[in-house]
């Protein structure tokens, strides 16, 4: 017997995400082809630079993935809390995990006044869900709204977003390193080359630098685009899990308003973690369209628009009067 399901999958989002990942893959293939071409030219110094960049880039990506939970907790200054220390928080997470049939992540609290939350860890067994004290005590979120935020973060865990984003960023990391290495070797290594190779090196190394810079720029934009789609996907899954998109909308509104009230020093301190946060801590200055391209999170309007669609699917038209003034 087929069980009835009330929700059509969001094909538009799936298509856009596929297209982004396809483009990333395309850039990756082109880049690898270029590197193999350069390697085939058998130029020793260029090949060495590429090899070192691959090892360093791959190594640092692997380490940051493997220790993502510890790194993120340390960066946020968060400590893990037991069910006895934070029974309410654990209670909400327990129930959401039971609803979603997923293993329970560890729970941590960060002593920051900025209202936010993030989830990290390379797989569900090693994941940790962290909320800031600001979100728990100072943001004025109701229990339902807090639950919406936690459901969003648990969806990141379920979607393995840390893994997906690390793999997606691998290319950009290697390309970024290549630009730097090629630049330094141009600066310091130019004179030391052996006789006949010098003519080739003068051409090849700037070529690597240029190609890497282009690849870096393109993949950076694609990664940010992918990150925004993953946020929308987490919003959607979170809202479907609690069946309460209205609470998530009002939580988003409250948290974003809270963001703007916080002094900049806090925000800058939180910048490196931005990609895994519930709402972005850093606001880019400059044109609205430009900041939208570089942003890790979709705009509040986009997120609310998507959630309103789920509200309508649940048979309710119009926003929840509690959350939006």
């Amino acid at each position, binding site marked *: 017997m087929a*069980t*009835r399901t009330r929700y059509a999958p969001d094909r538009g989002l799936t298509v856009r995400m596929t297209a982004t990942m396809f483009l990333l893959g395309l850039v990756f293939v082109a880049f690898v082809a270029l590197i193999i071409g350069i390697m085939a030219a058998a130029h020793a110094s260029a090949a060495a630079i590429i090899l070192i960049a691959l090892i360093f880039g791959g190594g640092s990506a692997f380490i940051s993935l493997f220790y993502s939970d510890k790194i993120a907790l340390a960066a946020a200054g968060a400590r893990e809390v037991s069910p006895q220390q934070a029974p309410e928080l654990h209670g*909400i997470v327990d*129930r959401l995990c039971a609803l979603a049939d997923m*293993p329970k992540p560890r729970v941590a609290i960060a002593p920051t006044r900025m209202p936010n939350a993030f989830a990290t860890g390379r797989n569900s067994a090693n994941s940790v869900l962290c909320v800031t004290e600001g979100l728990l005590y100072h943001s004025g979120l109701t229990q339902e709204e807090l639950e919406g935020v936690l459901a969003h973060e648990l969806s990141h865990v379920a*979607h393995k977003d840390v893994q*997906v984003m690390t793999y997606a960023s691998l290319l950009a990391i290697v390309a970024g390193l290549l630009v730097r290495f090629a630049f330094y070797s141009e600066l310091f290594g130019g004179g030391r080359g052996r006789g006949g190779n010098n003519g080739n090196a003068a051409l090849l190394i700037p070529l690597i630098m240029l190609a890497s810079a282009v690849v870096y720029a393109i993949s950076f934009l694609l990664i940010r685009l992918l990150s925004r789609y993953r946020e929308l996907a987490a919003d959607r899954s979170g809202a479907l899990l609690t069946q309460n998109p209205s609470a998530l909308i009002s939580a988003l509104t409250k948290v974003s308003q809270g963001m703007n009230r916080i002094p900049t020093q806090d925000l800058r301190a939180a910048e490196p973690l931005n990609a895994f946060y519930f709402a972005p801590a850093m606001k880019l200055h400059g044109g609205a369209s430009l900041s939208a391209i570089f942003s890790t999170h979709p705009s509040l309007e986009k997120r609310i628009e998507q959630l309103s669609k789920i509200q309508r699917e*649940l048979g309710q038209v119009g926003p929840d009067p509690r959350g939006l003034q």
Partner: protein
Amino acid sequence: MGFLDTLFGRTKPVQPKLDDLFGLPSAAIQLEAATGFKPTGSGSVSFRAAEGKPFADIQKEVLELLDMDNGKPGGGLPIEVTKDSYGYTWLISNHLSDEMDALVTDLHEVNTALVDGGFGPQLLCTLVAFRDDNHRSLSLVYLYKRGTFYPFAPVGSGNNRDNALELQVKGVLGEDLKFEPDLTRWFPVWGAPGL
């Protein structure tokens, strides 16, 4: 979750498993024989109410359906509805201590109505309460998404649970009921209605 679901960041709502609930009546007899814990006759279904009218309609239908049975022989007291501090709704059915079959039928009626309405993923757990002669309370919690049971034995007014008793119950009933093997999923339901 499959590879594609991970790739596209999708989660499929998890459908509940209902059938294992029917193991309860025979397990209750076994439990009483081995530990002296008797059913109180009270059981509840906990679910996460969805916003919007369709869900409210279904909830109303379920209540009307169950209340129609009351007053007939074997029918219990009217269904109680409460909402806990976590925002989950509990429908509590009260029967006599020896009417375990009727109780399970009531609980099953709630489940099937929600599943038929397309709200199966909203089911959280079912709780059936037991008590022994020393007034210790114990409940068997059924996790809908896993199709497994676990015991929950709160002690005193603080948030303490009697782990020894819980493990003893698992040992006694482990053959008859499907118990949840992952102990981290034995989450406490402090202050659950009908406990």
